[in-house]
């Protein structure tokens, strides 16, 4: 059984167990978008997010280093002039392509900054959902020391 599938089964088992044990509510167990985080490619994540390949948009900016010294801690910021409802960070060559997604209520700026792990040099995509439509920008980040394994 490949490792990813085993992890997935573990997640599923754990969530189901926790939900049935009342440790987390059913709602919480379902809220975490498991399908999106399981995606092993850009296309799989786009599909799980409910879109085809988003159009590139110059209205989204990604602030991230050209070269990440340490793949375990890569700072990435996404901002946009669009009114974002959702923002997502995808790392093309990571085992789990979707690194994180954010939900932006009205009154919150279309901006987020966080730190992610990158397994190797890869294109990183910043997606923004505005007006019900997903758009994106991308940047290649070179990694000198991979951040996913020992």
């Amino acid at each position, binding site marked *: 059984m490949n*490792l990813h599938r085993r*992890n997935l089964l*573990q*997640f599923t088992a*754990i969530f189901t167990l*926790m939900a049935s044990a009342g*440790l*987390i509510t059913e709602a*919480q167990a379902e*809220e*975490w*978008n498991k399908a999106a*985080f399981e995606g092993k490619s850009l296309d799989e994540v786009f599909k799980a997010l409910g879109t085809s390949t988003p159009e590139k948009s110059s209205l989204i900016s990604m602030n991230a280093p050209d070269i990440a010294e340490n793949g*375990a*801690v*890569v*700072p990435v*910021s996404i901002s946009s002039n669009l009114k974002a409802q959702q923002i997502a960070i995808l*790392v093309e060559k*990571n*085992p*789990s392509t*979707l*690194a*994180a*997604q*954010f*939900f*932006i*209520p009205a*009154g*919150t*700026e279309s*901006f*987020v*900054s*966080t*730190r*992610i*792990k*990158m*397994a190797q040099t890869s294109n990183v995509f910043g997606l923004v959902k505005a007006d019900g439509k997903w758009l994106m920008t991308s940047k290649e980040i070179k990694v000198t020391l991979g*951040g*996913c*394994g*020992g």
Partner: protein
Amino acid sequence: MGDPMRIRAAETNGVVDVKILMKHDMESGQRKDASGKLIPAWFITMVNVKAQGKDVFNAEFGSAVSKDPFLNFKYKGSKGDKLLVSWIDLRGDKRTDEATVS
């Protein structure tokens, strides 16, 4: 209950800049221990931030968010806003911390 997080929130011109540093190992499930066995995945999956009882930010993390997750976002708010930051992880462990906007 997890370890306390650090929250810094400062308001300028009606916009509150919020910086959060959570304490969590964020095991991706990809690493192996000394004997070559895979260390099971254990990471924060969801983060919720409320200001004055209303949601101002929600995040979902996968296995690729760095150890001791850092978040920075901005929302329209005021000095004195009561912030509540909560997270839950894969094991159902939770943590909630409060802060007041300065």
